[in-house]
């Protein structure tokens, strides 16, 4: 088939079996160009293949890709001010140059829209949105709206400043202006511990509010550490699995897989039982006299607990790819290396280890990517110092309801994983990766 696609020189075609027009096109016996026939045959196969994957493709599209896309879109989506106080925003952009206070007309429009939104109980949304930019603005908006809707009188400019003198400061208006565009980078900036100041320049968050960069660094550090630990613990197990006699290796394989068949929550809570200060391990250490009863070690509800539990849970993801690659390495390679003069350690390092690299790569990238997004285990055993970025994403999804920031954090995490994947592909090659 492949040879038919490559155009032969016309001389060869005229001598071909077709006997048809000698225009240099290969034809079948009934005169249809060979390429057309080939395409027709292939098309049917393609349609069948596509039909087979279509249900799964639709399922993934609807339940996976679309929700993720919509969620990520929230990282830049910024509809609140445009929907709630559209005319104020437009007027502010038109008439205010950032110097001094806006015109009276802006105050008038804002008052009008505030009263309107107050009556339909929507004004809190504006307050919440502005509060992301600067703490305290939610109460300013809600209290101002309440006051002007109930008892304040025009002229609005004086009334506003009288309610709260922040209405007389350009900063407040600058923040409103910066929070106004339909699409904004402010969530992404916040996820990087940056923000717009009232003049629209990008500046660092105040020092006591900088947490996300630290969390990203911690997440990557813990994930890297867990990956290295899994590799150090999993490599020998993979080697044993691949080299033990069938009976023993099957038993060992069951031991490796057993955690897979146990619920994640059960495994995590088991670690709590084992590691807590009144737990099994501490009791034993006190009992054998290794530590005193007062000196019980805090091994859980901190970073250590997260690292231990995650390493345990992710270990099979490292062992299995390494095992599957080791299984394919012929024992004669080691023998060959030794017959050629290499000592056993040298032969192992020169000949065996390089051949396990596809498995190490696959296991490492699997464990690292899973760790980077790990949520339940850090939430349960991480305490304060063992929380990862995903716990903050969950917090913003469920508690603070700042979905924009959650989406920005998640998007950055996804981007980081993709960059790593790209790097891995550049350095090692994805096609060399073997999962089993």
């Amino acid at each position: 088939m492949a040879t038919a696609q490559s155009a032969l020189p016309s001389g060869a075609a005229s001598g071909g079996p077709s006997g048809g027009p000698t225009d240099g096109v290969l034809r079948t016996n009934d005169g249809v160009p060979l390429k057309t026939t080939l395409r027709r045959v292939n098309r049917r196969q393609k349609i069948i293949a596509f039909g087979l994957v279509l249900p799964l493709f639709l399922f993934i599209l609807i339940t996976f890709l679309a929700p993720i896309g919509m969620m990520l879109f929230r990282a830049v989506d910024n509809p609140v001010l445009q929907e709630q106080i559209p005319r104020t925003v437009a007027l502010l952009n038109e008439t205010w140059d950032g110097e001094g206070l806006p015109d009276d007309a802006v105050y008038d429009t804002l008052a009008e829209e505030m009263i309107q939104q107050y009556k339909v109980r929507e004004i809190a949304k504006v307050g919440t949105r502005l509060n992301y930019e600067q703490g305290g603005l939610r109460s300013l908006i809600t209290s101002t709206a309440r006051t002007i809707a109930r008892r304040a009188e025009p002229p609005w400019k004086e009334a506003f400043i009288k309610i709260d003198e922040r209405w007389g400061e350009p900063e407040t208006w600058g923040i409103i202006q910066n929070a106004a565009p339909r699409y904004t980078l402010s969530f992404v900036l916040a996820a990087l511990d940056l923000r717009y100041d009232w003049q629209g320049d990008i500046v660092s968050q105040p020092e006591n509010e900088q947490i996300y960069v630290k969390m990203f660094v911690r997440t990557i550090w813990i994930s890297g550490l867990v990956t290295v630990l899994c590799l150090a613990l999993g490599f020998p197990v993979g080697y044993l699995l691949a080299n033990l006699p069938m009976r023993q290796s099957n038993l060992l394989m069951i031991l490796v897989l057993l955690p897979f068949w146990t619920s994640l929550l059960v495994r995590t809570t088991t670690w709590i039982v084992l590691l807590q200060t009144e737990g099994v391990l501490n009791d034993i250490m006190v009992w054998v006299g290794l530590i005193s009863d007062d000196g019980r070690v805090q091994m859980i509800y901190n970073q250590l607990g997260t690292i231990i539990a995650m390493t345990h849970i992710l270990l099979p993801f490292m062992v299995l790819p390494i095992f599957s690659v080791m299984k394919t390495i012929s024992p004669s390679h080691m023998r060959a290396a030794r017959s050629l003069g290499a000592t056993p350690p040298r032969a192992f390092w020169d000949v065996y280890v390089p051949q396990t690299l596809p498995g190490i790569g696959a296991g490492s990238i699997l464990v690292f990517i899973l760790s980077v997004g790990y949520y339940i285990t850090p939430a349960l055993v991480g305490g304060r110092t063992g929380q990862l970025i995903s716990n903050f994403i969950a917090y913003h999804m469920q508690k603070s309801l700042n979905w924009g920031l959650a989406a920005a954090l998640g998007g950055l995490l996804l981007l980081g994983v993709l960059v790593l994947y790209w790097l891995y592909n550049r350095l090692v090659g994805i096609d060399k990766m073997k999962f089993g």
Partner: protein
Amino acid sequence: MAEITDPFVRFQNVQKSYDGETLVVKNLQLDIAKGEFLTLLGPSGSGKTTCLMMLAGFESPTHGEIMLDGHPIHNVPPHKRGIGMVFQNYALFPHMTVTENVGYPLKVRGIGRNEMARRVDRALTMVELGHLGGRRPAQLSGGQQQRVALARALVFEPALVLLDEPLGALDKNLREQMQYELKHIHATLGVTMVYVTHDQTEALTMSDRIAVFDDGIIQQLDEPSTLYEEPSNAFVAQFIGENNRLLGTVESVDGTDCIVQTDNGDPIRALNVRTTGPGGRTLMSLRPERISINPNPGSMPNILPAEVLEVIYVGDHIRSRMSVCGRDDFIVKVPNWAGHVHLRRGEKVEIGWFASDCRALDA
């Protein structure tokens, strides 16, 4: 068999058992001379590969001693034995290029870069792969991989090279070509080669001497021609080349010959090689190509009637299955030369052979 004085390799009373119950190698005595091409030939499970692995150091003898150049090597680990080895599946390192593969034994020996490049180049030129140094093993054909494995086993100039069925995975034409090349390389370098195979043609083509293994014992150790022409027992006769078997009872011994009564009563004059004397059972072995069709009466001591049951045209010869002495599996090879006898199925012919071609062995 000539006695080897000052053997390069000596197996002394070597026994090997894996499970403590059965012996894979039973009391092996084998001397290999320096510069010799010795083949260990035998069916699978006959212990030949085990012998090779013991020599390479990957298995240790359960009993006995192996001497290399006069020194016992029992306690020398494989990497210090300095023995080149070519494995059955080549065992090329897939993550290294051809050059790196061939250079590996030099690298572990700490040989300098320039010297290494020179020697790798020479080794690759010897196997005619000088232009493929940058490729990976997976990009080479089977024959090329085979050559790389050979170059790698030779590049550090070992005095002894072991080859474990190295041509097994190649197709017939390539295998034959490689046989000659290996033989040439052996002649050029003068290294001692121990070659394991189950292919008797390969063994006959290449070896100085062949040790035929069966059941953990060397059945016969001889030059190829002796092995083929004068097999000393029934197993060797059967294993090397094709043989017709005739069972009978020795009637009388007449000098070097003996008269044998076959089971259906025909008397046959055969060479008395290994019988238990008159009255003993014997198995006579007769090469299919040593049989003449319709010989002149009296020209041969053995002339018997036969019926052609099957005729197969092979090309260089015609192969015919005949019914002789009550046996239906008697094979006769007629060389395809101008004017050969044209046999037809069902035809009745006479066949004859000389007493010296028919060897009476142990039953």
